[in-house]
């Protein structure tokens, strides 16, 4: 080997490469329940490529571990328990914060599970994990224990195409997650008659009739080692059927899932009972509670201090953005009516931002270019918006109560001038839809009330307690440019000798453009 080649060889970065091919991927829950649909056991279900650097310059290569996994079309069927377990698995294996080991050395780690991926005092591991699949399908259902009918009940089906998930952690210990989905389709699959007419709740819009034009869903989440988190969810050109009870039913599936494992303190050991590999608390009254009850001097102050202590110390942000969405409201969700009116809200852009920092929380909304179209399902007769493109923005900030300061709520809304016209058919359709949506909401509220009365859970108690918390100081301002409504006649039976006035508002307003 010549000298130059030898030097080149010394400075060439070499990598170990590993390729894993898994056939017949079979995923089961802890109780042997089948979670995925197993295809032909001879075909490849998952291919994983792993690459990491070697040699003297290896520490300079960041991220160190590069993992790319490609799934074959994957179809999973998850109950609430399975989904909760799946989430635990992802959170506490891939994203477990104790892996950073950046906490105070004096802090006791007795109550945390350490997986030993990192070594204290050494630079943290850097990695990039990418998982991708051409087709993902998730079926969610309620098992016999959770279904009101005591039978297994389907809830929804989510189909994603060309999904790609990336988890990146560099030397700054900030984990960055990104999920991109080319197309997402959410359908409710319950057999409820109340909303049986509309299975699709979220689907991509194809702008050109007959031409499929899938659009993008993007989710990002960035987390600092101290727990500060920023999430964003973006939907592009989504069609959303706003069937209120159906969305409520879908949302309830993810409500009140256990969000973190229950951690027992050493003082509680006497009140624990072990059955198999699980621990159960015999009494919910802890030693802390006993202390609180015994010091009956100033219960309110103690409660406030406890509430303050419960405030999150990390900051969190969430941005939900929509580009050109179409939100469709229908009068008859059962789909049995001969004529089913609908109202479509179309927006150019929407941003909803929520942030929490210490005892401050704020929500902001910006909606730009909103239009409303009235018509009928399957026969969208109106091609013209009922309102001139309309924009609105607002904000609501809340400071949680502290020992020295009451709870303060501040909000404001700014609206441009709303210009609308109303004709016979549009008004009739709108009234019909409003009436139908009102009925959907009322029936859903009644059902929720019945369920909450039947099952008074601890969550319901907490919510009641929250509602009792009174806002001491509040200010809410609304400023609107105005409202202009032109009542029009579309019966084509115009009043005699008055045709000349038809174009007058049109000409006048066009001059203003």
């Amino acid at each position, binding site marked *: 080997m010549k000298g130059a080649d030898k030097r080149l060889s010394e400075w060439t970065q070499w990598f170990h490469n590993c390729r894993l091919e898994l056939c017949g991927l079979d995923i089961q829950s802890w109780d042997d329940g089948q979670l995925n649909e197993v295809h032909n056991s001879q075909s490849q279900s998952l291919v994983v490529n792993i690459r990491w650097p070697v040699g003297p310059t290896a520490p300079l290569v960041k991220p160190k571990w590069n993992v790319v996994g490609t799934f074959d079309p994957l179809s999973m069927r998850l109950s609430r328990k399975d989904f909760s377990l799946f989430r635990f698995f992802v959170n506490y294996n891939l994203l477990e914060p104790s892996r950073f080991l950046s906490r105070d050395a004096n802090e006791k780690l007795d109550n945390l599970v350490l997986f030993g991926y990192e070594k204290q005092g050494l630079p943290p591991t850097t990695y990039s994990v990418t998982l991708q699949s051409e087709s993902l399908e998730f079926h969610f259902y309620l098992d016999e224990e959770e279904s009101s009918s005591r039978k297994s009940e389907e809830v929804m089906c989510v189909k994603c195409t060309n999904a790609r998930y990336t988890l990146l952690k560099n030397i700054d210990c900030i984990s960055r997650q990104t999920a991109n989905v080319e197309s997402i389709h959410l359908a409710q699959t319950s057999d409820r008659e109340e909303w049986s007419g509309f299975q699709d709740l979220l689907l991509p819009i194809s702008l050109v009739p007959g031409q499929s034009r899938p659009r993008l869903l993007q989710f990002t989440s960035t987390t600092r080692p101290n727990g500060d988190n920023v999430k964003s969810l973006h939907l592009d050109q989504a069609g959303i059927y706003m069937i209120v009870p159906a969305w409520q039913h879908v949302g309830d599936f993810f409500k009140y899932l256990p969000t973190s494992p229950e951690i027992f303190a050493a003082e509680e050991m006497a009140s624990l009972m072990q059955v198999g590999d699980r621990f159960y608390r015999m009494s919910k009254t802890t030693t802390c509670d006993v202390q609180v009850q015994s010091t009956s001097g100033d219960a309110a102050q103690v409660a406030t201090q406890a509430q303050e202590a419960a405030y999150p110390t990390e900051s969190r942000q969430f941005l939900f953005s929509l580009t050109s969405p179409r939100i469709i409201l229908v009068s008859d969700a059962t789909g049995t009516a001969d004529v089913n009116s609908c109202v479509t809200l179309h927006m150019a852009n929407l941003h909803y931002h929520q942030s929490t920092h210490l005892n401050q929380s704020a929500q902001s909304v910006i909606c730009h270019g909103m239009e409303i179209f009235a018509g009928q399902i399957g026969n969208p007769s109106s091609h013209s918006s009922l309102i001139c493109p309309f924009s609105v*923005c607002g904000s609501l900030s809340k400071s949680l109560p502290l020992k020295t300061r009451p709870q303060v709520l501040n909000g404001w809304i700014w609206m441009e001038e709303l210009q609308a016209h109303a004709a016979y058919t549009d008004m009739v359709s709108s009234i019909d839809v409003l009436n139908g949506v009102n009925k959907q909401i009322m029936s859903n509220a009644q059902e929720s009330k019945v369920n909450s009365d039947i099952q008074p859970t601890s969550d319901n108690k907490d919510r009641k307690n929250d509602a009792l918390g009174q806002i001491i100081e509040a200010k809410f301002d609304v400023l609107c440019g105005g409202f202009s409504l032109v*009542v029009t006649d579309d019966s084509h039976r115009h009043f005699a000798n008055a045709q000349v006035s038809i174009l007058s508002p*049109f000409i006048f307003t066009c001059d203003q453009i």
Partner: protein
Amino acid sequence: MRSNIAYSRFFLLYLLLQALIEFSLVGLRCSRVVTQSHDVKTFVTLDRLELTDLLQSEDSPFRIMVSSSNTASANGGFFSSFVGVVPALSWESHKMLVSDWGFQLSSSMETLREAIGYACAFDKFADHSSVQACDFVFRNLSHGNGISYIELSLSHLTAQWNPSTVIAFQRFLGRMKKFTTNILTTSAADKNVEIASSNSSKAPESADVIFSVKADIQSVSIYLSKYAPYCQSQVSRQQHSPLITIFSFGFPQQTKNINKDVFWIPK
């Protein structure tokens, strides 16, 4: 900036429709304050209100059916002066911006928040000169002990009876009634059921409200007119003066208020 395409779509329908009436409210400002002592203050101001008969020709003196315009509001009112100091609501200038960590409000949104806070400040509603440019002012102060003060100010209101428009509007409502009969019947039936259920579930509550109402009206004019509505000839305003002025009063020069205080103390 609103797109011209969207504007065009909005006005396309005018080519096929006949405009009957335009109802417009200009410059609506509302603020609600809850204090530590459980007092609730509500303020609402409106720059201008107008009801226009679009079947009348542009130069017809009967085109404006109801108007609340006075000198101050006709010069633009409060809202037009406010719009001059805030940026137009465009997406690029108001959307959330990416910051060093997460997202932050744009400077336009911050400006807007400060401007609205200034425009809806408590002293702005108490300031006479600030609300003078508004045709309609509503103030409500509810104390935590149940005593409420309501104050209503209306500067000028002019309305005129125009038989042709009323007939046209009745025809419009009559046609619409045919379409909405089923809807209204169904909703009324549902409402009756809800009312019945709510009546059965709610116990009668004793009213314990003490309130005071103060109305301050500068002038109200109602005219009864007789006029050939679709006459194409140019006529002067003097030739078509109102047939009868059925109700008109006002106090433009001096401060005279129509005050009515109502006190009701339950047993």
